[in-house]
């Protein structure tokens, strides 16, 4: 990858270098095999964790690395360039830590966060339900207070890391209907009655388990309520604002991988006596791919810098997620085209990139929902 990065500090350079080094040595050689076998790379994530890469954007006082989002996202991009599942796993873990890190009490942060950020544990985020993804405020999983515990019942759907996560950020209904009746609970992965179902058979991301989780009378201590009672929906949305940027960074890394592969191929493959990249029809296609990736990266980093500066960033984050993931879809589609028949067979990774890109337009708010977020701001004259 020949991306010129402008990083804010020497420390940040070291962080990104370390990520790249581990990605080259540990991710790149394993991705094809693990994807083919559908095995989750738990040990690879431990390696990242031990290196300190599972708590990047959280404060050092809580056990994180205190890195700006701008740096964290470029680490995700480097990981996604080799293996999007691993980058997404880091992103989901970061998302799962968000409620405690931003809304937890001092005592909760002291008790849980250092462990969560130390790198040995992996998190999951339980918001979506079978009946509702986009309309998350209509969720129906219930958490009923009984003494000093909550009794949780219901089913969550499409949960990344279902069955392999050590803890979950769970959103459940504690009050009346709508967004105002949702609370956030920090739930241990081995809680009795927490039942991950059979993993879904997916189009891509085959090395990452995605499954329903049934909550069957799961008892959760009341001191695991994160934020205020019935105040969970705001936390869920704030988490997704930040999480979206992670998905955008994954999309940029994935698209860059597809571009680099396509360029290398087009420089070597000859037809009609010359390298196919010399045909303007293909050269221009690659030029457009490269340009839209550069734009997606900058939009993503712009949103991150707004966040790092403490400015409102959710519109920019929605724009970045929308643009970067649509870019990844188009770029990976075109990369298949550049390889012709070889793009359609699994001897080359481009068909996998193509399948992986699709999901990025769906998760953490579909791209229709991103447009909705952006349009609403415009309608309000903001």
């Amino acid at each position, binding site marked *: 990858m020949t991306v010129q990065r402008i990083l804010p500090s020497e*420390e940040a350079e*070291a*962080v990104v270098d*370390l990520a790249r*080094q*581990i990605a080259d040595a540990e991710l790149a050689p394993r991705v094809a095999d693990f994807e083919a076998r559908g095995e989750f790379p738990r040990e690879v994530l431990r*390696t990242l964790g*031990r*290196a*300190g*890469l599972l708590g990047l954007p959280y404060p050092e006082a809580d056990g994180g*690395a205190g890195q700006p989002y701008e740096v964290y996202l470029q680490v995700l991009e480097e990981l996604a360039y080799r293996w999007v599942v691993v980058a997404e796993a880091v992103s989901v873990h970061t998302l799962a830590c968000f409620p405690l890190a931003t809304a937890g009490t001092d005592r909760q942060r002291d008790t849980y966060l250092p462990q969560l950020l130390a790198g040995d544990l992996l998190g999951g985020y339980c918001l979506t339900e079978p009946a509702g993804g986009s309309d998350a405020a209509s969720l129906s999983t219930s958490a009923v207070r009984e003494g000093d515990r909550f009794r949780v019942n219901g089913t969550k759907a499409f949960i990344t890391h279902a069955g392999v996560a050590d803890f979950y950020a769970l959103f459940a209904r504690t009050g009346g209907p709508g967004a105002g009746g949702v609370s956030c609970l920090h739930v241990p992965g081995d809680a009795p009655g927490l039942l991950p179902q059979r993993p879904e058979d997916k189009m891509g991301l085959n090395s990452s388990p995605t499954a329903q989780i049934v909550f069957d009378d799961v008892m959760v201590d009341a001191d695991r309520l994160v934020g205020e009672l019935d105040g969970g929906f705001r936390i869920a949305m704030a988490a997704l604002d930040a999480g979206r940027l992670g998905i955008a960074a994954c999309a940029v890394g994935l698209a860059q991988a597809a571009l680099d592969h396509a360029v290398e191929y087009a420089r070597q493959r000859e037809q009609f006596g010359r390298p196919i990249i010399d045909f303007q029809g293909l050269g221009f296609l690659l030029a457009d791919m490269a340009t839209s990736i550069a734009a997606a990266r900058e939009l993503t980093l712009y949103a991150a810098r707004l966040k790092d500066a403490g400015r409102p960033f959710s519109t920019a984050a929605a724009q970045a997620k929308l643009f970067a993931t649509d870019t990844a879809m188009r770029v990976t589609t075109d990369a298949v085209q550049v390889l012709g028949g070889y793009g359609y067979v699994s001897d080359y990774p481009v068909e996998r990139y193509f399948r992986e890109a699709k999901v990025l337009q769906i998760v953490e708010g579909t791209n229709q929902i991103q447009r909705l977020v952006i349009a609403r701001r415009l309608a309000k004259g903001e």
Partner: protein
Amino acid sequence: MKIVVLVKQVPDSGLERHLSSDFTVDRASASNVISELDENAIEAAMALADAGQADEVTVLTVGPDHAVETIRKALSMGPDKAVHVQDDAIAGSCAVTTSAVLAAALGTLEYDLVLCATESTDGAVGGMAQMLGARLGVAAMTGARKLTVDGQKLTVERQTEDGHETLTASTPAVVSVWDSMNTPRYPSLKGIMAAKRKPVTTLSLSDLGLAPDTVGAAGATSKVVQAEPRPPRSAGQRITDEGEGGVALAEYLASQKFV
């Protein structure tokens, strides 16, 4: 126990490498990295430190100014401090004179165990541990694939072509390791940050009491007078199978001592 790990900065063996006009390794224009096996020596030291068997790990390197990058890299894996012997007169040293510099530097340090790689990825002489053992008057156990420490007793499994030998010695001693000994850890972010603050002592030849003309190109015991690039790969030998292909293959493999 105090451990000193020898570390060398070398041109990246994964990239194209060149010799200077005087046939010494071109270090100035190369992309320099830590010699790969040195990471195994550091890992061996840090494993002992993690197990509570070593209370101080020092990195020692002889090299030009930019070798300090390699020192930081080594320190980010966990050692406590570093010593950098730097003197323009050292440039062009052969392995024998380098061993004299290292021995002199070790003389300024406290150590129970000196760990190093069996060979470097640039010179690949593979004699440093032996030479240091001789110069320091301590045991040198080379080519280790396993090292255990029991008080002052060191036990090494020495990798040989057809198995291994078990060697023992008491401290102080020099042990050189192969990559079969362990898998080096990645530095952690915390390690990288901490490495910037760890002490690095720079020593010159006069600090070590060595005369400039005993080292470097002047004092070298060997000199490269000619070098040629490796010839391009030849096309290889093609066996056409006319019913006897298998036999021909087996004969070829036998003639090359593969079978």
